[in-house]
């Protein structure tokens, strides 16, 4: 069907047709449309909110908050937005991950995004209105920034958008949306303390991800305090006057970025030195129980030998797993692996936790398809002994056992986005809703007698976003009392073991989260009016993520140090407790904040969503080919606002003379529908070109036909793909032969992929693709050709950074008009020229040991530096061959190589080795240099 050709435009078309149907990607995880949302639009003068009816209250609140932020940001930026802002809202993160506005799978760490082409803001609700408001405002800052700098640039007719560095745009969005916050304080304090604050324009900062946001936020706070927001506005308005960001910054301050950074570091050191004098620093001493990656949610259990061990969540492997280690000594071993198969797609790292009851039953939350599922695994047998999937609950967080092991309390987010408390009676397998309101109730914990539940909630605060308190619920009466009352936030309460009058929690009153203890008199029947006292137990300079009370004096904490969380065992008896204590009057949480309705503030109207297409891209190509001459064409892509439906158009002509125009006219239209779980694509095409095929030589072919494709994701990791093409083909060979055929081809594929990648290629997991399909010639009622492909890639993680990779691949073509494969080269049989091994069938087996080689290699030039980072090494062994008729025997090659990453994405590959036919070994060494990721 396809043949070797030089037509870049036609290749572009094929890529286009494949673009958005996930079925057409060779490997890759799936974006599964579990839900079919009934989209509505809520409009005001400034916003169009896209929502589904179940989340109307949320959409209405978002609209009100947006109008409030719009007024504030108009003043801050001195800029108005002259088009309504499209804002797409999902009631939870699992729904958000199904959005088609970004075609790539969305990681859990993304809390929303602003898409620049259609200026769309897309945001999920995580159940916490404070976070939601922060994300809304963060994205609106991006919108205003976009309008501000692009208005100025477009006014003068600039060819390109102002190129502000990412740390500036994200830092500004963070700082102008939430100012300063305990999380930023924790990260920046740690960076200053351990001296890893990266230079703002360094590649290393870009590789850190979240630290880039926080460094940008910290720098802009310093800049605004010292140089005022006026200079930031001036910088945005006048960026076009300068060649670069650094020159613009110097233009507005008179100082270089280096000088400003130096001032900033000194100011941070001065600021934090004051705190450090009276605070403790956690050290990597004998109390540290973990070493690699980030480790959170520690919980103690007794193993089969009767020894105390600690289970915890860890991200050390790229996946989130549950590991264990000794309570008194560090012996880290895997306990339960996740995020590699359906049903255990995510453990919600840093968002949820694990708990183990006295019987050794581990409870944890996993994402399983369209919603979260609570699972219980017995640690002795390592078997799943129970699970709970609530149809009304989409997301689940922080499950905790009761003391008797019969009940589990957890926070659940329903379809509308509300986060409430639930109890699961494990034996009866029933879930009961405890709260039902807009307030964010989280991190529940049973009292030792099981009659009370303490949890964290924003229900007592007068203003949304002003923090959270500890609340108590009496399970018999349903009465809720508020234990604490600011300032700051009290989070993650945990009842002290065997001490019913003491509750441990985290509080950020010192600027970062530290451990506190709340003493509760009359803990058996607390009532409004009693006075609770709260006392800090730690005074750490950086802070804690979470903790687990082992006994009265021993606490496991997940502490922040060197940009990672590590589990430490703290003995509180050895600590000098800070003296300051707070007293709180326990009250009913009345007169709390309410969701805004905004009925009187602005006029709004709601209507069903209608497809309205707008341009995604448009481009033209003119290329020159030494054989086929000048070729030209244009392509155009349009889609609706929600990205559910795409149309791709291609128009090209490869004629070399006016008389050939109608004979070399190429037109293709493809429609891709991503609305439902099964993604569909249909298209029509007319291609008429001159081609070359090594089996048939030069010829002219006109093909007119239909094409359809369907991809059905079984889950995130697996999918089925089907495609069919029906076309009429006429071939006119240059030597006089003529062929006319009506062809039908069908392909079916099964794809699996759970691999995770590092900068140079896959690191762990496995991928598989099986494809088969025949082509029939209707006109002559005959079999035309067939294709069968098997491609298995296995990645064995021998150590954290050491991977043994294997690729087993076999591809067969037989019949008329078939592919010819070329398997030599850096991506196939290394050491051979790309055209040295070819045929319509091939088998290949590649093995490679991948290991870290160097952190970076810096090439210094006068004007700028080029940095390769990281550099990884490989030892490889390839076996395979290609043939047409008879199998010619195996060829092989072996050697070693280096892969370096340039500009954060481009991989340079260097392979050195020897070839062999398994009888002799090539005497000289081959050296191959190429670009691209590892298989």
């Amino acid at each position, binding site marked *: 069907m396809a043949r070797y050709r030089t037509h870049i435009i036609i290749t572009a078309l094929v890529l286009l047709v494949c673009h958005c149907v996930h079925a057409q990607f060779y490997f890759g995880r799936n974006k599964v449309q579990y839900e079919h949302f009934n989209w509505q639009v809520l409009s005001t003068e400034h916003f169009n909110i896209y929502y589904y009816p179940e989340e109307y209250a949320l959409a209405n609140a978002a609209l009100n908050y947006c109008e409030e932020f719009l*007024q504030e940001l108009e003043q801050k930026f001195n800029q108005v937005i002259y088009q309504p802002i499209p804002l797409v809202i999902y009631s939870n993160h699992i729904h958000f991950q199904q959005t088609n506005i970004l075609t790539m799978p969305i990681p859990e760490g993304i809390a929303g995004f602003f898409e620049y082409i259609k200026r769309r803001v897309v945001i999920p609700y995580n159940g916490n209105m404070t976070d939601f408001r922060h994300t809304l405002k963060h994205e609106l800052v991006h919108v205003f920034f976009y309008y501000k700098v692009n208005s100025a640039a477009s006014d*003068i*007719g600039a060819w390109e958008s102002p190129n502000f560095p990412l740390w500036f745009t994200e830092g500004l969005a963070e700082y102008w949306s939430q100012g300063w916050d305990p999380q930023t304080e924790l990260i920046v304090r740690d960076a200053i303390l351990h001296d890893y604050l990266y230079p703002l324009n360094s590649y290393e900062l870009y590789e850190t991800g979240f630290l880039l946001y926080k460094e940008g936020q910290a720098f802009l706070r310093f800049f605004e305090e010292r140089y005022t927001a006026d200079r930031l506005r001036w910088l945005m308005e006048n960026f076009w006057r300068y060649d670069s960001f650094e020159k613009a910054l110097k233009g507005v301050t008179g100082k270089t970025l280096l000088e400003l950074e130096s001032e900033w570091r000194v100011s941070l050191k001065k600021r934090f030195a004051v705190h450090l004098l009276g605070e403790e620093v956690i050290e990597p001493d004998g109390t540290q129980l973990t070493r690699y990656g980030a480790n959170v949610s520690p919980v103690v259990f007794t193993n089969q030998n009767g020894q105390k061990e600690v289970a915890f969540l860890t991200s050390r492997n790229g996946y989130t797993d549950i590991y264990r280690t000794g309570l008194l000594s560090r012996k880290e071993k895997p306990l339960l692996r996740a995020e590699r198969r359906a049903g255990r797609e995510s453990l919600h790292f840093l968002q949820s936790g694990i708990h183990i009851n006295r019987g050794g039953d581990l409870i944890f939350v996993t994402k399983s398809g369209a919603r979260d599922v609570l699972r219980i695994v017995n640690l002795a047998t390592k078997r799943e002994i129970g699970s709970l999937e609530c149809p009304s609950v989409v997301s689940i967080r922080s499950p905790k056992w009761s003391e008797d092991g019969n009940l589990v309390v957890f926070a659940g987010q329903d379809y509308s986005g509300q986060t409430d408390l639930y109890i699961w009676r494990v034996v009866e397998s029933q879930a009961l809703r405890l709260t039902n309101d807009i307030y964010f109730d989280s991190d529940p914990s049973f009292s030792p007698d099981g009659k009370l539940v303490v949890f964290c909630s924003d229900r007592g605060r007068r203003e949304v976003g002003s923090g959270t308190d500890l609340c108590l619920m009496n399970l018999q009466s349903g009465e809720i009392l508020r234990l604490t009352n600011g300032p700051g936030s009290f989070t993650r309460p945990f009842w002290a073991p065997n001490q019913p009058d003491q509750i441990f929690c985290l509080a950020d009153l010192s600027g970062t989260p530290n451990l506190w203890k709340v003493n509760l008199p009359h803990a058996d029947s607390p009532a409004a009016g009693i006075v609770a006292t709260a006392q800090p137990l730690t005074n750490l300079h950086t802070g804690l993520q979470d903790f687990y009370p082992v006994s009265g004096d021993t606490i496991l904490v997940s502490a922040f140090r060197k940009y990672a969380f590590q589990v430490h065992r703290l003995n509180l008896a050895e600590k000098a407790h800070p003296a300051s204590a707070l007293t709180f009057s326990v009250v009913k949480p009345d007169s709390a904040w309410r969701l805004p309705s905004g009925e009187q503030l602005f006029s709004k109207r709601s209507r069903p969503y209608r497809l309205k297409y707008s341009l995604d891209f448009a481009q033209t190509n003119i290329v020159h080919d030494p054989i086929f001459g000048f070729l030209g064409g244009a392509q155009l892509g349009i889609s609706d606002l929600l990205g559910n439906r795409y149309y791709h158009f291609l128009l090209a002509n490869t004629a070399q003379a006016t008389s050939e125009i109608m004979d070399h006219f190429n037109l293709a239209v493809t429609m891709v529908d991503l609305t439902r779980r099964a993604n569909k694509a249909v298209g029509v095409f007319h291609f008429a070109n001159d081609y070359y095929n090594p089996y048939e030589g030069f010829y002219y072919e006109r093909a007119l036909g239909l094409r359809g494709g369907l991809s059905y994701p079984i889950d995130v990791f697996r999918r089925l793909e089907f495609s069919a093409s029906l076309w009429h083909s006429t071939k006119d060979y240059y030597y006089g032969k003529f062929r006319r055929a009506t062809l039908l081809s069908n392909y079916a594929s099964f794809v699996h992929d759970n691999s995770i990648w590092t900068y140079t290629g896959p690191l762990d997991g496995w991928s598989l693709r099986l494809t088969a399909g025949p082509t029939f010639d209707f006109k002559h009622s005959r079999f035309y050709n067939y294709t069968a492909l098997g491609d298995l890639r296995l990645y064995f993680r021998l150590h954290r950074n050491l991977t043994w990779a294997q690729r087993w691949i076999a591809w067969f073509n037989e019949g008329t008009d078939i592919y010819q494969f070329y398997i030599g080269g850096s991506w196939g049989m290394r050491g051979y020229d790309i055209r040295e091994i070819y045929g319509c069938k091939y088998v290949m087996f590649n093995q490679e040991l991948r290991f870290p080689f160097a952190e970076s290699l810096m090439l210094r030039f006068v004007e700028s530096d080029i940095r390769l980072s990281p550099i990884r090494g490989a030892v490889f062994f390839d076996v395979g061959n290609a043939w047409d008729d008879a199998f010619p025997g195996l060829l092989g090659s072996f050697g070693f190589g280096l892969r370096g990453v340039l500009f954060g994405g481009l991989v340079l590959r260097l392979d050195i080795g020897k070839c062999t036919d398994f009888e002799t070994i090539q005497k000289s060494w081959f050296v191959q240099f190429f670009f691209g990721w590892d298989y």
Partner: protein
Amino acid sequence: MQTHQHKAWSRRGVLVFFVALSGCYGPLQIPKITPEICVENPANPPQKIWQSKLPSPPKDILILNEQKALITTFRGELFLLNIATGKRCSRFWTPFRKPVQILLCDQRQGEIVVSGINDPKVYRYDLCAGRVLLETRLPGLDGTMLADEGGLFAVQNLRTLLKLTPLTFKVLAKLELPTNVAAGVFAFQGQPALLTADGHWRVYDKNLTLVQDLNLALNPYPVVGFYSDHLVIADSKGSILILNGEGIKYRRVLDKAIYATPILDADNLLIACADGEVISINWRNDKIDWRWQGAGPVGRELRICNDVVLVPYTRGKIVAIERHNGAFRWEITTDRALRGWAVSRQGILTTDRDKRVAYWKW
């Protein structure tokens, strides 16, 4: 033939205007805009007479006379418009394609001096003949120029104060400033003065020697209005200052940003804040006479027409409120966000984000 007639008419119109206003002024003057205009009937909203679209984004509007208005664009163009019909009489394309600013007008000869931001040259144009009279290399001229008997004073690259010859723009003296210039150059007691980004008010003599340095403790880019012998300054933290030769006459801090130049209306100070509120303060007794809350920021200066104050809201509205009590009178709406505006006895000219110019007649 028709084209020639049109051009001739256009040139005559310009000449008539410049001659009419030449009076006793010197040849090169800063284009001045009077905040208070006497109109026939500001009680009712003006009616839109015409609307047309320019080929590039408009920057500033300068109403020259009853017939003509001059519009500069961000892309190096100057348009001379017939106010009554909206027809473009002339189009001057400056040799640079950068935002154009009119530095000086020679009203007697029908000449203007223009520069482009970031452009290395200054051009002196003959509007009537449509040709360049002078082209001289003087990079980075920015902001307001001062022209008096002592010569021309201008700011170069935001950092250097220049003294130039009036006709040839030869540099007579230059002075490096300690920080960027925020606004200037102004004539203050017959001497050049400017406001620097560190919040200082600096006055120099004709030889560019510093004679007065007053720390006003302002944010870096304040807005400045010059009314007879009083200077009114406001900044983004809400500081308002009235200054004259005797020093600071009035100071007040409103907790809201101000991006539009306040107007000094005798004893009243009219301030439009970034949150849309318009405040009238009697600065003699520091009492707020009235407040009026509108929607969205105000990015341009207010205008007073008889007994109403016109407030140009950037979102695309011009609102008229009573001058003496702040009561709402009427409003007109542009289709898109408002960019620039100019008020004359006959009507209002507006430009918006969509490159459109509209004329509203009283």
